[in-house]
């Protein structure tokens, strides 16, 4: 699981969409959610709900696909047969998650092909953390353990959301996650408790990845009517800060117990408030990387585009079999 905490929103998406909704239908829709019932694809839903969910599920799917690249890099060079098998299985899981999520988003009316096009043209985003490179095996171990851990925090929250197909996909995804987390932890423990060289390698990876990890959950949420509505509709289930705090609370002690240090001298738990304190992440860098100027943005997109273009002849040849059959949106 790689889905980022942060859902990138263009400024054009605002509550104007709500203005011409039928108040009676809207009230029924909100009452259903308040009762704890799920919304299914054929139910009436506000345009803003549909748009926001497509954006969110699609970005999650893209993050799974793109996220498999920095880890997949290390399959051929993983240390030993067992690690290769495990990493291959994990990367296969992640790509499978993308397919499940694309399927869930498709039930809202956006075809998968359109989503993939929007990924390649840069129109839709994916989790920013995958724009950073994996220099060593330890970087891949950091992702397997801690980036997955961060994503799990977010996804467990989303799995309690209101849209049926997304929840079903997340339930299935979460079930596969326990392996990823344990595998990643196992890899990190192995390095951190190993030779001085191995320890150094792991420490360097933590140093490199800490800033992107803090960016991962996104900046503090602006409290706006927009956020309020998405919370009421159970689209947004936890704020970025809540997810970040939960992650720090669960994983900083586990990193420290391995004798690793975290490159932030202000990081500590305020025992009185129960909150973690830390140096404010560099949000200028975060914005710069989202907007295309990260170390790997170009490569990630180029690899996807290559797969899309060089695979086109295979799709064309196979599609001849179903010529004339129109694409219809999937059911559930």
């Amino acid at each position, binding site marked *: 699981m790689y889905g980022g905490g942060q859902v990138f929103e263009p400024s054009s998406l605002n509550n104007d969409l709500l203005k011409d909704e039928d108040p009676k239908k809207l009230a029924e829709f909100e009452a259903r959610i308040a009762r704890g*019932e*799920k*919304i*299914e694809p*054929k*139910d009436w839903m506000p345009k803003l709900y549909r748009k926001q969910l497509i954006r969110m599920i699609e970005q999650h799917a893209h993050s799974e696909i793109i996220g498999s690249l920095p880890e997949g*890099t290390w399959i*051929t060079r993983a240390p030993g047969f067992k690690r290769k098998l*495990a990493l291959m299985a994990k990367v*296969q899981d992640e790509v*499978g998650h993308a*397919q*499940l999520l694309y*399927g869930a988003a*498709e039930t809202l009316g956006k*075809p*998968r*092909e359109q989503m993939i*096009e929007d990924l*390649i*043209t840069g129109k839709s985003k994916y989790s920013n953390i995958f724009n950073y490179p*994996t*220099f060593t095996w330890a970087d891949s171990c950091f992702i397997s353990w801690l980036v997955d851990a961060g994503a799990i925090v977010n996804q467990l929250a989303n799995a309690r959301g209101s849209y049926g197909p997304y929840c*079903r*996909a997340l339930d*299935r995804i979460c079930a596969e996650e326990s*392996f990823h*987390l*344990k*595998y990643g*932890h*196992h890899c990190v*423990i*192995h390095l951190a*408790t190993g030779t001085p060289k191995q320890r150094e390698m792991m420490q360097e990876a933590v140093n490199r990845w800490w800033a992107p990890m803090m960016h991962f959950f996104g900046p503090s949420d602006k409290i706006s009517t927009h956020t309020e509505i998405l919370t009421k509709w159970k689209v947004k289930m936890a704020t970025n800060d809540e997810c970040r705090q939960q992650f720090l609370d669960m994983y900083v002690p586990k990193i420290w*117990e*391995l004798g690793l240090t975290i490159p932030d001298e202000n990081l500590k738990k305020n025992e009185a408030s129960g909150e973690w304190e830390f140096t404010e992440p560099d949000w200028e860098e975060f914005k710069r990387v989202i907007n295309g100027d990260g170390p790997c943005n*170009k*490569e*990630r*997109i*180029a*690899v996807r*585009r*290559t797969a899309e273009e060089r695979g*086109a002849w295979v*799709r*064309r040849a*196979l*599609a001849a*079999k*179903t010529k004339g*059959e*129109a*694409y*219809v*949106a*999937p*059911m*559930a």
Partner: protein
Amino acid sequence: MSEFLNSLDPRINRLSIPVEFGSTFPEKDQKDQFITFEVFVQPKVSKAYQHEGIVHAPTDEMAFLFAKEQFSRRGMSCSGIWVVRTQEIQVSPITEDGDNIYAYINEEIMEGATTSESTKYQVFHLMKRGKQHVHVGEVEASSPEQALLHAKNSFASEKPVFNLWIVKDSLFMKIEGEDFQDIWNTLPDKKYRDAMDYRATEKIKKFKAEQNA
């Protein structure tokens, strides 16, 4: 300066991707997306088939292969997979407020129904919003409408059903039964995909003890 992308990943370097590939994207001449298939999985012989999701595929056979990878790669057992084109599924409206969909199915629905030779239909129920459609059985009928009526006689009960799916049996590709069981025989062997295979508490304890010594 190289005209190809220079990556840390040797596999990507072998693809010789032009540098400009990361910055622009040409319009596609035509859409080339495959149609979708709905996938139903039976986790054990004693259990009912359940809707699991979709795959995109050009043929039934490939839909099965993708479905197998997607939906039966995990878990300890699987005893069968059915795939069917999304458009072949006949869907009832979804009911509100705990209404039973069967309450709306009566002889009137036969008006205007086109009947043909009697054939087998598979019936699926949605018992709770947010859950999957589950297979409940099959009926013989000469039209989808008649299949609904027969389903009501056979499967309606006190418990409300929110949504019904009816599918002509002949349209499924079914991979099930003893002939195909070896496909899933190795599932329990792949321990490296299981969290249980990555216990490390002892190692951490030992490490901490050494640090404190």
